[in-house]
């Protein structure tokens, strides 16, 4: 299955969260591949802590592959190549975790027929090899978004399941922007329909992920004053109302990730060690990521509303 991770704005934690989802699925035994299609600013090698991948992807990454400069994009075996102390020990029963980094020097590029064909070939090939393929797309209505919309509309891709995750922060502006990215005049749905996607099917394959959500009930905020607490709850309620009026209410949400300093500042994978031993990350975050990872392929969460 393909999972496209998109967001309207930067700073939504799209890359770091989707990388964590890939990690959780690999932990549970799936073979997972993570593609960094964020051509403007590839960050995946930092998230997975594979500095060698930066070097390797200097000119042999996804960007070079798509424009036809190399026959195959470089692959990084995260378990083997990471410098992360915990990730280095691949747990028994886990699946493969492979990163395909973007090029450091790559930028956005307009899609032509050759790029598109290479993109399709790559996705078909990875689909036969991996249980889950997470594609991290550049923010906004980027060329990367156009390319995968076009690719998934082609008849040769009809047998490959694809789902979309739209990441947004839990603020008024982000909620409106995320809705615009999907349902707007030049949004993903309109763009997909123009390329021959079935509108209902495409809508049914899109879910939202609320990122960096401060949960007023969590222990983190238990010390705030009564006024603050009331204010937070009110804001939260307003935002929920706003979201549902934009068509991205509860039924369209796959999950929420709590506001988590480790995700915000370190921008790396959260391991069980961070939660259990050093306890720098919250159990709620780990649980939220684990739930989200499970729901990616749980059809119950993808039924048409």
């Amino acid at each position, binding site marked *: 299955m393909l999972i496209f991770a998109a967001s309207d704005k930067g700073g939504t934690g799209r890359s770091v969260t989707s990388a964590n989802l890939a990690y959780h699925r690999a932990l549970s035994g799936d073979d997972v591949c993570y593609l960094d299609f964020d051509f403007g600013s590839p960050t995946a090698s930092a998230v997975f802590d594979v500095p060698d991948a930066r070097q390797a992807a200097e000119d042999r990454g996804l960007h070079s592959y798509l424009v036809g400069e190399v026959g195959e994009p470089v692959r990084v075996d995260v378990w083997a190549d990471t410098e992360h102390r915990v990730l280095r020990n691949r747990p028994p029963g886990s699946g493969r975790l492979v990163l395909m980094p973007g090029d450091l020097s790559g930028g956005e590029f307009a899609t032509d027929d050759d790029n598109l064909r290479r993109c399709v070939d790559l996705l078909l090939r990875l689909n036969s090899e991996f249980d889950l393929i997470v594609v991290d797309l550049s923010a906004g209505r980027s060329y990367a978004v156009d390319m995968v919309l076009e690719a998934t509309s082609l008849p*040769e891709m009809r047998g490959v399941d694809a789902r979309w995750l739209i990441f947004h922060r839990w603020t008024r502006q982000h909620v409106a922007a995320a809705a615009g990215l999907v349902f707007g005049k030049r949004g993903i749905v309109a763009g997909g329909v123009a390329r021959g996607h079935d509108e209902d099917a495409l809508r049914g394959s899109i879910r939202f992920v609320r990122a960096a959500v401060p949960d007023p009930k969590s222990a983190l905020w238990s010390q705030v004053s009564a006024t603050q607490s009331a204010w937070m709850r009110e804001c939260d309620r307003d935002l929920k109302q706003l979201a549902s009026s934009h068509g991205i209410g509860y039924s369209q949400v796959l999950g929420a990730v709590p506001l988590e300093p480790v995700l915000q500042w370190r921008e790396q994978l959260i391991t069980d060690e961070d939660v259990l031993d050093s306890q720098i990350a919250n159990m709620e975050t780990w649980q939220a990521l684990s739930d989200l990872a499970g729901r990616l392929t749980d059809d119950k969460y993808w039924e048409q509303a």
Partner: protein
Amino acid sequence: MAAPGQSARPVLVCGEVRTCLLPSFQALDGRAAAQLLRLRADEHVRVSERPNLYVLSPEVLTGVDCRLPTANGARVRAVGTVAARAALTEGRVLQATAYFSAPATGPDLRRPWGQYLVRPGLVEPFGKLPEQATAQGVLRGAGRGELDLGMIAEGLLAGLLRHPLLDHKAPFKSRRTHLRWTARRAPDGEGPALVRFTLAEDGLRSMELRLPADTPAAAAAGLCEDLALHDWLLTTVVHMLDNSRLGAADGPSAVLALRPAVDHLLHLWMPRAHVDRTLGHLWDELEREPGFSRQWHSLVQRIRDQLAVQTIPLLHQALSTR
């Protein structure tokens, strides 16, 4: 064009085979397979049904004019055509091969294309061919701007995978393998020999052969495809057994994870089924060391034993409720 037969006598044949599961829910029958592999309108697809269903495409040519990959960095320009073909075994395992032959020396000037086209699959060096360095270069893999057999094989394979016959609903996930091979000419009077077969990481394999001058390049390619097919079967079933956590995970789930092997792979083992008669005995060396069939039979036995063990509780249940 003085004595083309002389100048064209190859001293080196190099190739790369890519092997993968056909991404289709059902195996293709002979007719569908022939349809898939009809790469050219002017030539027939070869279909043989005994001892197993094996379908071989006609060859397609790719014109090349570029540097040869060389292990010592020597810059040798070469011009000619690379042959590529695809094979489908039992409608399940798809292979694409790209290969070329090279003579010891070639002309110092590029000739008109027509003259290269009448020698399909021959790539001529400008001047003298650094035989050893080129063979090693091919095994190591081509750099940028060098003749890349893997890219040609991949191009053929990718084209086939876009065919409307394929639904991309393969019954299980599996990795590809790449086998790079070289065959240098054996000293006069000596028979064919397998010098080395090596497993590297990421599904990469390499093989070095020595073949008499009269062995056709296509026969060498056929042998390598057969080895690549069986190596892929071993690789895939071993991976499946690893992932099934047999022994660790209890109950029927581990055995169920092996079901695709039973359904789709176990009947495919048939070494030498379509190998040229003069080369079939090269298999014996792989059977001795590392022992391809030995490993396969042990894997198959393990899977069958597990299936048998899982049926015992069911038998028990059935008997006790009588």
